[in-house]
C-alpha cells in the first residue's frame, strides 16, 4: 500500500543491474539509430569538434596571429570534453519532452533519460580519444603517457558527475518551463567564450582573472588540458570541480524528488 501521493518517482523499485542494462540499451538505440552501424557514423561523431577547432585555429592563429604556443593542441584538448558536456546537456534538457510516451505510459525511472544523453556523448568522446591521442602525438610530439591510463578514466568519471546533475536539473526545469531548452543552448554558447576555451586564461587581464578562475567549467576544462598536455592533475582544479559536482548533485537530487512525480502530467 502506498499513498497515492507518494514522494516517490515511478520505477523506484528497479535494481541497479536492471537500470544499467536499460541505460546500455537506450544508448545503443540512439547510436544505432543515428549511425545505422556505418563506419562513416564514427567519422561524423568526430567531425563537429574538429571543425570547430579548425575554425578557431584559422581565426585566431592564422588571421589574428595570436601568439600562443601549441594553439591547435590547446584547442583540441578542450574542444572534445566541451562538446561532450554541451551536446549532452542540451540533448538531455529535451529528453523528457522527446520521450513523453515513455514518461506517460511506462513506470520508468525518469532520471535515466537525461543520463542516457550524457552517456551517449560520453561514448562519442570515447570514440574520439584515439584520435585526440594521435593528434597530440603527430601534431605536438606528445607521446601517450602511462599515467593517462588512470588519469583519463578518473576525469571521465569526474565529468559524468559534473555534467549529469546539470542535465537532470535542466531536463526537469524544461518540463515545467518549455523555454529552458533554448536558454540552455544560448547559455552554452555564451559560456564557451566566457570560459577560456579559445584563449588561455593568461590572456585575461589580471584584474578580471579571479572571476574567470571562479568558473567551474574552467576548472574542468583545465583539468583535461593538463592531463593531455603535461600528464599531470592539478588538485585545486579537481577539488573545485568535485565540490561543484557534489553541490549541483544534491540540488538536482532534491529537484528530482520534488518535481519528477508531476512531469507525467506535463509532458
Amino acid at each position, binding site marked *: *500500500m*502506498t*499513498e*497515492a*501521493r*507518494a514522494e516517490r518517482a*515511478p*520505477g523506484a523499485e*528497479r535494481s541497479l*543491474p*536492471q537500470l544499467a*542494462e*536499460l541505460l546500455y*540499451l*537506450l544508448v545503443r*538505440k540512439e547510436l*544505432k*539509430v543515428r549511425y*545505422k552501424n556505418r563506419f562513416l557514423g564514427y567519422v561524423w561523431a568526430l567531425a563537429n569538434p574538429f571543425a570547430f577547432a579548425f575554425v578557431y585555429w584559422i581565426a585566431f592563429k592564422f588571421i589574428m596571429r595570436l601568439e600562443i604556443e601549441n594553439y591547435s593542441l590547446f584547442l583540441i584538448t578542450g574542444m572534445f570534453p566541451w562538446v561532450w558536456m554541451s551536446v549532452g546537456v542540451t540533448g538531455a534538457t529535451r529528453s523528457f519532452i522527446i520521450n513523453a*510516451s*515513455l*514518461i*506517460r*505510459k*511506462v*513506470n*520508468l525511472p525518469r532520471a535515466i533519460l537525461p543520463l542516457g544523453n550524457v552517456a551517449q556523448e560520453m561514448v562519442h568522446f570515447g570514440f574520439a580519444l584515439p584520435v585526440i591521442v594521435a593528434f597530440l602525438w603527430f601534431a605536438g610530439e606528445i607521446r601517450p603517457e602511462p599515467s593517462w591510463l588512470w588519469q583519463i578514466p578518473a576525469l571521465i568519471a569526474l565529468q559524468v558527475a559534473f555534467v549529469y546533475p546539470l542535465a537532470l536539473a535542466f531536463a526537469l526545469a524544461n*518540463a*515545467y*518551463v*518549455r*523555454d529552458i531548452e533554448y*536558454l540552455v543552448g544560448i547559455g552554452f554558447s555564451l559560456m564557451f567564450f566566457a570560459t577560456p576555451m579559445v584563449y588561455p586564461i593568461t590572456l585575461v587581464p589580471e584584474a578580471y582573472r579571479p572571476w574567470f578562475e571562479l568558473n567551474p567549467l574552467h576548472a574542468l576544462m583545465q583539468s583535461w588540458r593538463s592531463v593531455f598536455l603535461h600528464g599531470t592533475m592539478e588538485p585545486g582544479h579537481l577539488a573545485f570541480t568535485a565540490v561543484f559536482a557534489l553541490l549541483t548533485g544534491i540540488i538536482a537530487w532534491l529537484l528530482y524528488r520534488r518535481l519528477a*512525480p*508531476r512531469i*507525467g*502530467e*506535463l509532458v
Partner: protein
Amino acid sequence: MTSAVTCEGLWKTYQRHRPVGVKTLLLGTSPPADTRFAREWALAEVGFQVPHGRSFGVIGANGSGKTTLLSILLGTVQGDRGRVGLNGNVASLLELGAGFHGDLSGSENVFLYGSILGMRLAAIRQRFEQIAEFSELEGAIEQPLRTYSAGMVARLGFSIIIQSGADILLIDEVLAVGDARFQAKCHGALREFRARGGTLLIVSHNMKEVTEVCDEGICLDLGRVVDAGPMAGVAARYQERMAVAEPARGASRAGR
C-alpha cells in the same frame, strides 16, 4: 489474503497549470484560465479491490477518468488523496510499444522494450524464442519496425508484454488490434496468464469483450464510481444508460 490491486478513496484533480513560458515567469502574468472544460475532479472517491488471479473491467464514457485511474495505478501520474496498492510486478499496456523505435529491427525492439518494462537481459534472451513465435512475425522480426503494419507492431508489443513476467497487467483499450484470429490468441494467452495467478485490469469500450474477459468491474462517470459488481450487470446497465443519456452532458467533461 491481500488483494493484487487495491484502490481506496482515490481523488485526483488536474490542475489548470500548463507548461509556462519565460515571459509568463518574468512578467508574472498568465493567460486567463480556460474554464470551458473545467471540472473539479478527474477522479473522486474511487475505490475497489481486485483479488489475485481475477480480471477486472473499468468502463465509462470518454473523459470519465479511466486512463487517469490506470496512470495512477501505474505510478506515472500522482493522485491527490487516497491509497493505491499493487501487489506484484506491474506491466502496462497503456500504449503497446511505448518505446518502440522504427529504425530498430523487431528483435532489437524486443530487447529495448523488454528492458523498459523491467525485464533483465538474461530473461529476454531466454524467452526470445517464445516472444518471436507468439508474434508470428517469422522472418520479418529482423526487419526495421518502420516496415511493419500496425497489426504487426501490436502483435510484437503484446507478445513481449505477455512474456514480461508481470503479475499484474494494466490494459487500456489495446486488445482491439490484430485480426480476429490473433485477438482470439491474445484472449487465450490472457486466460493462461490468469490461470497462473496473474491479475488483469482492463479499460475498454467494447462491452462484449469486457463481459467475456472480466469477472467484476466498475463503471466511472465524471470521475465517480457509479456502478460496481459482476461485469455483465455493470456493462448491461451502462449500455442502458448510454442509450438514454442526453448528449448535452458531454460539454462538461474534461478529456485527458
